[in-house]
């Protein structure tokens, strides 16, 4: 049980991160993961560039709190959360969440939960450049709905 939680401008290597997640614990039979990428289109507009701002200090605390809550809900082994900040281009990796567990049901649930809470509770903000100019990305109603279902 050693969580990896990182906020960084540098890219990350998914294969390496998953290997390091699973290397520690031979009980882990299941790893569910999510990789988020910059899309080249959003709300109907082409996106040529994106920048990600965050709230240093609070971000790491919020992510650690979300992971701790996932641990309280599911029997999981190790967790990796990596989120990039700064300037990104279409297809660039933004976020990786990976969860190992003995069985896949818990790994999937915890991974999806962490993503849903990250989307609504971790202080990151996206700004994208489109042919119409730069704009701050609006929060999506569907993200709030996704997070709400875990309150049941």
């Amino acid at each position, binding site marked *: 049980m050693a969580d990896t939680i990182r906020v960084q401008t540098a890219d990350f290597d998914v294969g390496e991160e998953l290997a390091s997640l699973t290397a520690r614990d031979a009980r882990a039979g299941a790893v569910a993961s999510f990789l*988020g990428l910059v899309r080249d289109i959003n709300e109907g507009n082409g996106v040529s560039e994106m920048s*990600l*701002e*965050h*709230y240093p*200090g*609070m971000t790491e*605390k*919020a992510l650690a709190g979300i992971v701790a809550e996932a641990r309280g809900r599911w029997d999981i082994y190790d967790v990796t959360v990596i*989120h990039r900040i700064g300037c990104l281009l279409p297809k660039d990796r*933004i*976020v990786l969440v990976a969860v190992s567990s003995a069985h896949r049901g818990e790994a999937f649930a915890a991974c999806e939960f962490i*993503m849903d809470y*990250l*989307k*609504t*509770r*971790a*202080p*990151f*903000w*996206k*700004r994208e450049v489109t042919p119409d100019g730069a704009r*701050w*990305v*609006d*929060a*999506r109603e569907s*993200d709030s709905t996704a997070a709400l279902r875990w309150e049941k």
Partner: protein
Amino acid sequence: MIKILYFASLREKLGSGGESLELPDEVSDLAGLLALLSARDGEWRSLAAVKNLKMAVNQEIADASARICDGDEIAFFPPVTGG
């Protein structure tokens, strides 16, 4: 003194990433601080009216009734959009 931070679209709109402020005696919660800041001229007037304004006290999400005291780090920001 309290530390106040503004992020993302709010930072741009206010033209400020943050400030240090001597907390007046009569301000004891976030609602009070918001009223104080909204009494300033220009864009500040619209601060309290920002849709879905989020607030944090010492890096934890808080609502308008949250107590604040000397030394606290307060943040105002729009809904988050990471991931």
